[in-house]
């Protein structure tokens, strides 16, 4: 039963909260949708913390796509052996992981120690950073220490197929039963993080302004707002 809860019910609830919560926030709390910048108060530490963290998390995201979403058979078919894969996965996971953890630590210390930043930090922001730190810290530990000292765990045979099975609504929770505890903890905390997104400033990641390079530099708008002046 517990298996079904953790690997079927909980993930779906988390996704449902993420999707419905984000829509709700967009539609009814739209004015609170922003990147939580504190740069106006402090720049030097932010530069280090934010830059390391964000670039790290972008690479970590790419790494997760490569490890979890892309199946093992694909790598084998293009001639990437398991050994080769793990060599690069450990290297490619360790660097972003360390960047993320380091960036988060800098951001956390900055929040605690710089008075003008500290007074404006909310509970949700501490919660976000600490949860991110847990997820990223465990993830980095798995990559660097567990994989090299205990066993180079083949998550592409268990966690990967299970995660993909969620999206076709045929959850294969049995796959998760033999996964090492530390990996399961990472997964559960990640889903908790996903469910937290609509209630924290993490929603800013959905606003990445990717259209910017393609739009006209100058923007004109008519006052009544119901018609665009430019075709």
């Amino acid at each position, binding site marked *: 039963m517990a298996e079904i809860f953790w690997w079927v019910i909980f993930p779906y609830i988390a996704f449902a909260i993420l999707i419905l919560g984000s829509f709700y926030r967009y539609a009814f709390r739209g004015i609170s949708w922003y990147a939580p910048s504190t740069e106006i*108060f402090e720049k030097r530490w932010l530069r280090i913390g934010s830059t390391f963290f964000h670039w790290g998390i972008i690479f970590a995201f790419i790494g997760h796509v490569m490890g979890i979403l892309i199946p093992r058979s694909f790598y084998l078919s293009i001639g990437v052996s398991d050994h080769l894969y793990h060599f690069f996965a450990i290297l490619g996971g360790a660097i972003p992981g360390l960047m993320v953890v380091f960036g988060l630590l800098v951001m956390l210390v900055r929040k605690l120690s710089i008075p003008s930043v500290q007074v404006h930090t909310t509970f949700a922001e501490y919660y976000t950073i600490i949860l991110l730190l847990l997820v990223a810290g465990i993830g980095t530990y798995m990559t660097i220490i567990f994989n090299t000292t205990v066993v180079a765990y083949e998550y592409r045979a268990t966690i990967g197929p299970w995660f993909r099975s969620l999206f076709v609504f045929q959850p294969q929770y049995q796959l998760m039963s033999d996964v090492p505890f530390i990996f399961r903890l990472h997964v559960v905390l990640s889903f908790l993080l996903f469910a937290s997104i609509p209630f924290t400033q993490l929603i800013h990641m959905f606003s990445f302004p990717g259209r910017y390079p393609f739009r006209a530099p*100058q923007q*004109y*708008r008519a006052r*009544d707002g119901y*018609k665009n002046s430019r075709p």
Partner: protein
Amino acid sequence: MRIKAQVAMVMHLDKCIGCHTCSVTCKNVWTNRPGMEYVWFNNVETRPGPGYPKEWENTDRYKGGWTLRNGRLHLRAGGPVAKLANIFYNPNMADLSDFYEPWTYDFEHLHKAPSKEHLPVARPKSTITGKYMDKPEWGPNWDDDLAGGSEVVPMDPNVRKLQEHIAMEYEKTFMMYLPRICEHCLNPSCVASCPTGALYKRDEDGIVLVDQEACRGWRFCQNGCPYHKVYYNWNTHKAEKCNFCYPRTEAGLPTICSETCVGRIRYIGVVLYDADRVKKAASVEDPKDLYEAQLSVFLDPQDPEVIERALEAGINRSWIDSAQQSPIYKMAMKWKIALPLHPEYRTLPMVWYVPPLSPIMNHLTNEHDLSADGYIPAVDQMRIPMEYLASILSADDTSVIRRVLLKMAAMRVHMRDKSVGGMDEMKKSKLLQEAGTTVEELEDMARLLAVSKYNERFVIPTGRREMDEDLHYKRGACSIEELAPPEGMVTYPFERGDTP
């Protein structure tokens, strides 16, 4: 030709007394709330001085405005791709130390302090941290009237550029006031800097606004504006800026800073321009040509063809009428005595400045029988160095400043002759010739600059809401309009429809 109307302002610096009434009324109306304590949509700075925020003119540091590379305009802080790569941390943004840490005073203490030998004091308390501040070290107009003198004046980027050493001895110093608001530029770099497209220029009147619901707080506009007139509200995490008091101008009233201006230095009116010429005007090679290029985008509101095309473009008749009586058109385009602030930023700013006259450095020895022509060299010896004014108002072209100052001096000489006499005839003087003007023009100028009344200084057509297409809808709009606006529930990220 794509005709657009623009509300614009002229500030006649000769009349500014540096009283800050404009700043205070603006603050009370717009920025008197948490997150905006440090913000002054209107500020008046003593020049020479660092300004607000400190060194805002230092484009090497804040990287505001446009530069020309291979004949093409580029944002100085980097284009869209560079910006997206820097989105996690904006290296060029000013922080609070460049503005100041705002504070209030602990007034409660004055009421509650027990009786003691010494009078109680209200200690300064930061409105950022809520903690007492032992010693505020910078604040709004900390450097007013050259306070801080030789320590503060060299922080002025224009001063650093001056060739000759500027004297800080009391007898030789100079100063002037520079009131500043957002310029509501024709080629606004703040708009181009916004990754989300939250900033926009209004079609009807050219006012540049921030869509508070679209703004995501990426903060590139703040330093993207070379005049540093977009501000980050740390409370709402959105950018805010001067909105030209559009709720007032739409009702035909002047902005609050203009309404309350004690020196009556401000003028507001409509100008018509050709939006298709803007890019070209902003891209001329030599910065010194930018002033003339900027003038070339405006259209003569008396020209029948312009009127016809303006009507075709949907510009209301009352707006055209206003454009014809516009004090801005007279001062900036016809008489050319009002100049754009830092034209070299290539944003085509729409707040124009009449440069101030200043006392003459050397005594005029023969004042009693001074001829009109005797004022020609006087203009070159004024206390505010012409290079300094040129550095602010004409991209270092002193000939532009000289011509305006000559015109202003000629106006004074002529009006003095008219009211007290004793001058030789203006009509034949070399002064009139060098200033490139006529007696009639001087008299018109004197009227507008010195004695014009409220409705001559402010010629503002109302917002013509009756022309809005959705008025019928609004009249019958239902109480859940907020939930179900006529354009549909979710508009972003899709284009808004053309629904009436």
